[in-house]
């Protein structure tokens, strides 16, 4: 058999060229957005009942290109544009899920998911319960969220609290490339509705991740579960920073700076806001005895408030200081020029670390 020659370099065989390309690929950093895109594509391959729709997700591939190429590859019946109506998108997804599909729908931006809130709160969250388990709604609502990208008003909300407050919904938010892939696959395979929050400032972030290997492990059911599982993003011993989504990188930055001053901070990435992993969070706090909860969302009546309450209820006797919060102020999101004053920064986190009653 004569080996075919590579068209790119006629001096090497096609097989060698493929191997070289693959090796190069493995060393290529992958963006967060590409991991999400690959998770969607792999889910479409794995399960015929998966359908993707929303505003501009077809031909354009989404305003953030997360659905890029899916219509071309899988056809307009698997990935398509809808009329501009968020309640319509969610409501139609409910009906499709009732009738055997697994819809994965995109809300274009956090604040533009609000028109759909009635469908989410009254039906997506309750259908299983109000039918005594007869109807399940396996559907994913993807929401690009949070700030830090210079977006204008109505494009930077951290709206996770509304959904986390609603029983019947699961709420996930990945903070690294590997989780972007694995958590979206898990969300799509979940028999419960998942609101999947994608920190939009991470879409272009890159990490060295072998997506093909991740996919093989996931399909072989060898990957560790992420639902209900927080992740230790950085091991430490002096205090615990509890955070999620867009604030994980800020917390890691703060931990790095603190290390230079000899303070060793542990960073816990919640990942799955609902269901919440009390075990991992509380084990860390009991070990360190100090904790700060960090989130972009306004602090009043927020996910951060809930975490503080849970930690003090469970870890009171291990605490050396009150559990503090570093969150957005209780003001409308000040996009875009003043957002830096609103968002939790590494400096603000370090100020909070200073207040953890070290002298005691």
């Amino acid at each position, binding site marked *: 058999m004569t080996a075919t020659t590579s068209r790119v370099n006629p001096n090497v065989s096609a097989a060698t060229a493929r191997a070289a390309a693959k090796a190069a690929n493995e060393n290529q950093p992958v963006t967060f957005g590409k991991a999400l895109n690959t998770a969607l594509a792999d889910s479409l391959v794995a399960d015929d009942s998966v359908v993707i729709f929303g505003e501009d997700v077809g031909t354009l591939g989404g305003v953030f290109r997360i659905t890029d190429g899916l219509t071309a590859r899988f056809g307009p019946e698997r990935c398509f544009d809808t009329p501009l109506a968020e309640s*319509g998108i969610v409501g139609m997804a409910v009906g499709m899920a009732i009738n055997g599909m697994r819809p994965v729908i995109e809300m274009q931006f956090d604040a533009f998911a609000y028109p759909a809130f*009635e469908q989410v709160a*009254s039906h997506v969250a309750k259908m299983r319960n109000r039918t005594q388990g007869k109807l399940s709604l396996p559907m994913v609502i993807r929401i690009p969220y949070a700030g830090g990208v210079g977006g204008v008003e109505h494009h930077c909300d951290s709206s996770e609290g509304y959904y986390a407050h609603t029983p019947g919904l699961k709420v996930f938010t990945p903070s690294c490339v590997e989780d972007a892939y694995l958590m979206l696959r898990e969300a799509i395979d979940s028999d419960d509705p998942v609101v999947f929050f994608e920190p939009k400032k991470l879409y272009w972030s890159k990490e060295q991740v072998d997506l093909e290997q991740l996919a093989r492990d996931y399909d072989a059911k060898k990957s560790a579960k992420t639902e209900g599982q927080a992740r230790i993003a950085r091991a430490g011993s002096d205090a615990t920073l509890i955070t999620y989504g867009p604030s994980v990188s800020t917390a890691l930055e703060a931990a790095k700076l603190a290390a230079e001053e000899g303070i060793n901070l542990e960073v816990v990435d919640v990942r799955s806001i609902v269901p919440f992993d009390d075990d991992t969070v509380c084990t860390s706090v009991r070990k360190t005895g100090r904790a700060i909860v960090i989130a972009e969302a306004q602090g009043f009546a927020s996910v951060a408030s809930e975490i503080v309450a849970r930690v003090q209820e469970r870890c009171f006797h291990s605490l050396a200081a009150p559990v503090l919060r570093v969150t957005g102020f209780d003001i409308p999101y000040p996009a875009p020029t003043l957002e830096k004053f609103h968002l939790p920064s590494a400096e603000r986190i370090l100020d909070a670390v200073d207040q953890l009653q070290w002298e005691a």
Partner: protein
Amino acid sequence: MSAEATFGRISEVSKKFGITPEDYMLPARHMINLLNPDGSLRPENEQGTEPGHEYPLPSPARLMEAYAALVKGRRVNDQNSALVRQGRMAVYPSSHGQEACQVAAALCLGENDWLFPTYRDTVAVLTKGVAPMEVMTSFRGEWHCGYDPKAYKCAPMSTPLTTQLLHAVGVAHAAKLRGEDTVVVAMCGDGATSEGDFHEALNFAAVFNLPVIFFVQNNKYAISVPLSQQSAAPSLAHKAVGYGMAGERVDGNDLMALMAIMTRAVRMAREGNGPLLIEAHTYRMQAHTNADDDKRYREDSEVQGWIAKDPVTRMKAYLEDAGLLTDAALSTIAEDAEVVAKALRDGMNQDANTDPRELFEHVYSVKSTQLTEQQALLVDELDREEA
């Protein structure tokens, strides 16, 4: 589907009837009405029909089947109102006066077809085949809908107005993507047509060319607010044209006309001609629910005026005059209705056997650690109560 393609589809349909796309989408000049209030058949030129808006009379067997369901529906409405008065049912939004609409909405459907009802549509749900006690589960104050929606192809009765219309669109869309033959009837009231989801559902159904029939029971009021304060449209059926679908008005107390219109609508939808909007003119003879006082917003004389248009007496008179309804048939129909009423009385007179522990079981597919803890708290409370 592009806008041109969608309108092209409407042009194709209208050609079948030899009329313009506009004449196809706009409702006929008059509402479709086959029977006079006294039960006599109206002359053909007074039925409201027009070229392209013609509705063949249902067969005698079909009419008899519908009449039996109508009598059963009336009996159930009145039985339930009585059970509410006796404190055996928590709340009941009666459809007394609207039973012809309810029966037609369910009877026009085939085995693979779905119904999406509201809180007012218990008689439609019953006619779709759901067991009487299961239909009334939520009204007796239980926390769930009481029936398996998939088994009956009947969604839980929806209270958040018009939200269910979008679910109907989704069910039809899923079926279409899989190449299945499924028509969906999605119901709502006149007031509900003001809601945003009404608009979104009709638009989605038209754009995706889905076999959904939007069936609006215009009973003139949304609790206390009359239709004139909901809409300035020439009629609710006229809203169809704005979405690129056909609309029609029908006398909602004329079971014959309803059966004729809904049967054609289902056939049209099944043949791939897209969604339709049907507005049925009817009247809510009783208060919004037992908790409402309709004396505060309407004159008794107005209510009395509608007694003469009652759907049950009208259909009965027609069938008797046509020699279809014998005394024997009448008593069989009444007995069958009484069986259902008795089942409801017996069922409601037994205390509901609910277990508060179950409240945690169906929130998620697998109970979370947190819900397991909360359930244990409640169980502990219950145990201490028993001890």
